[in-house]
């Protein structure tokens, strides 16, 4: 306890733990915000904007610009000093367990670590005909402004489409020498997504020698977070996942896997 406090004080001497926004003078706390209120533009609306600014901790606050947007809305730009202090000792940062890479970095990492393209096989399995998820991740068109995995020059993408039977998926994965298999499940009636996924993982474990199963990834809006082990997959991705998330994860997981394998080979 005392040890920890001591450390904090030592830090305090070199870098401040309390900071305020910087306008043009240290400690002035100056910030700028803009927002729209659903009010016609008049004095009352400007007063309302000032009240909001004060409640956000801006004091003094100055409405420097107010402009009507149609008859029912007003747009404001407000400058002011924020009376909040930032305590750096209380800042916690949650890191994802793999680094987010750009497509360029993904391609470079694959070239460097594998010296060949990685093969990704994707499908909607079972009766699920909703390819919106798998297509958002795989099609070059992509999702949320990010290009799909087809865009990555070092990824060889085979999209089998909808209503793929598990034996067909396993066969395709084997013939394409898949490094990773992505399945998408949108329909959740009677837990179809759970049954389909466990059926799929069992089939892969049966068809491949131990330790040679491709990386198995499941995606869909209704999978429970942290249920990877129960479903037998390496990773689950939920709503809002972008192609960049998936590509970064694939590189991270496959590099880890090949490193483990190298160690294993050295010891053997």
């Amino acid at each position, binding site marked *: 306890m005392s040890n920890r406090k001591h450390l904090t004080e030592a830090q305090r001497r070199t870098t401040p733990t309390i900071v305020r926004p910087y306008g043009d003078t240290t400690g002035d706390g100056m910030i700028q915000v*803009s927002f729209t209120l659903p009010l016609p533009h008049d004095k009352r609306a400007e007063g309302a904007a000032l009240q909001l600014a004060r409640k956000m901790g801006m004091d003094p606050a100055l409405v420097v610009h107010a402009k009507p*947007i149609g008859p029912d809305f007003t*747009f404001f730009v407000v400058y002011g000093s924020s009376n909040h202090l930032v305590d750096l000792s209380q800042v916690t940062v949650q890191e994802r367990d793999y680094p987010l890479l750009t497509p360029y970095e993904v391609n470079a990492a694959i070239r460097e670590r594998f010296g060949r393209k990685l093969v990704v096989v994707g499908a909607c399995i079972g009766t699920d005909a909703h390819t*919106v998820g798998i*297509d958002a991740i795989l*099609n*070059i*068109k992509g999702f949320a*402004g990010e290009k799909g995995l087809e865009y990555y020059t070092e990824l060889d993408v085979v999209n089998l489409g909808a209503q793929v039977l598990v034996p067909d998926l396993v066969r395709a994965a084997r013939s394409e020498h898949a490094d990773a298999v992505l399945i998408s499940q949108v329909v959740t009636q009677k837990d179809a997504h759970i049954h389909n996924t466990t059926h799929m993982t069992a089939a892969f474990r049966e068809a491949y020698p131990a330790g040679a199963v491709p990386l198995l990834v499941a995606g869909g809006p209704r999978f429970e977070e942290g249920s990877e082990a129960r479903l037998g997959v390496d990773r689950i991705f939920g709503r809002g996942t972008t192609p960049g998330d998936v590509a970064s994860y694939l590189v991270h997981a496959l590099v880890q896997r090949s490193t483990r394998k190298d160690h294993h080979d050295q010891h053997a």
Partner: protein
Amino acid sequence: MDRARLLAAQAGEPVVTLARSHTTVSVERATLRLAGLAGADHDGEPWVNHLVDAVRRQVGLEHGVALPVWDALSGGQARDLLTLAQRAAAGSASFRLPTGQDRASAGAAAAGAIGAGISRIDAQRRRREGLIAELGDAPRTPWIYLIVATGDIDEDIPQAQAAAREGADVIAVIRSTGQSLLDYVPEGATHEGFAGTYATQENFRLMRAALDETSRELGRYVRLTNYASGLCMPEIAALAGLERLDMMLNDSMYGILFRDINPIRTFVDQRFSRQIHARAGIIINTGEDNYLTTADAVDAAHTVTVSQLLNEYFAKEAGLADWQLGLGHAFEIDPAVPQSFRLELAHALLARTLFPDAPLKWMPPTKHMTGDVFRGYLLDGFFNLAGALTGQGILLVGMMTEAVVTPFLSDRDLALQNVRYVLDAAGGLAEDFAPPRDGFIQTRARHVLDEAVDLLERITQQPAGLAPQGGGTAYPPLLAAIAEGTFGLMKRPPDRGKGLEGVVQRAEGEHGYLNPAIDLLEATAEGQRA
């Protein structure tokens, strides 16, 4: 320039021949929609799908859907198309291929029913022309094009009306993610979509009616845009014509390259949809901006030109006139590249010079919008200036919050202020702007055109008859080039891709394929070309 056009025609012609010798399930469904068949069963499967599937199962689609369907109707199996489709869905309709006199009378009955649909499209075109004459048109060019996308038609309508009041001349309703891969058109008014609203006949009708109301209020005709792309391109085109949409996104290769839709399916569907657009007086918007979002905008500039030339060839062949060609391009050069704005001007001017009578569609920066909204606002200002300076016809309004959030009300207002400032301050500058002979801009434009000609030469010299899977079929050189990955990064062989199972080779000869819609539309195209 003449050489580039000649090469584009050389590359396109065999593809047109291929399109003329095939049909697709969606072309046949569109034909039934023109004859007035609408609606869906309680699971949402449209009646046109039921009827086409039943005909295909029993007698195949090689002769088209019209002969067996109107033969069954005149044989007394049902009193109308809807009842016949319902019976077909229940498995109690039987179809045959009529011959002789039966074939002639089924064909005539089909032509009557389908002709009525085409007449409705003609009436909608006249209505548009009438409204423009009565209310007035957009006050200037470029037309200001704004996007609405909430997923719920009831939310879209007030947003679209507000956007029009704020100065938009054209409203585009973005479709739900993934609609392009549905092999049916959803029914009715829809309230949930993924990052967009489903294109349905009812949604089209509701939005057009709302904008008609706003057009009256504003004293200018506000245009409506949607997407004729994906697996149901011909059906969406038919619905657009019937419900008086004014512009449709419709690219010759976008679905193939970016959506992995089968190339033959795409070219067959595209020809039919463009014939409808031609008839309906709809302006098409092509999708060349997509090439620049996936490839470097300087290195790939010539692929835009090649695609514009191909789009022009296919469009004119289908009967579209120059004023209907909203050929696309985009402001996507990395701002860190020295002289990036001069390069943009060179590319935009090249398109303007190559297609002097087409209303070019000018797309704003997206790839280099970083989340720094202030810098983005400046970039959009330069985009607007380039548009004014090079006489673009349709200007899609850039948002400073591109890649950050769905635009706020204030983002849209600021974006429109940006456009208005530039057009008011510099709208006439195109008149004074003539880049010096052999200067930077002219030299760059010439270089891009040379590269485009080289690429077209490579495409036309692609050994014809190359079948990627070693089969016996000979494919046109353009399809071979697409299979080789000439465009973008994608290799799309003609025997792969989504929707392939919906492609059918037409039966030949006088006892062969019959589609009264195509016969009627061909006549329009002939007239246009003559």
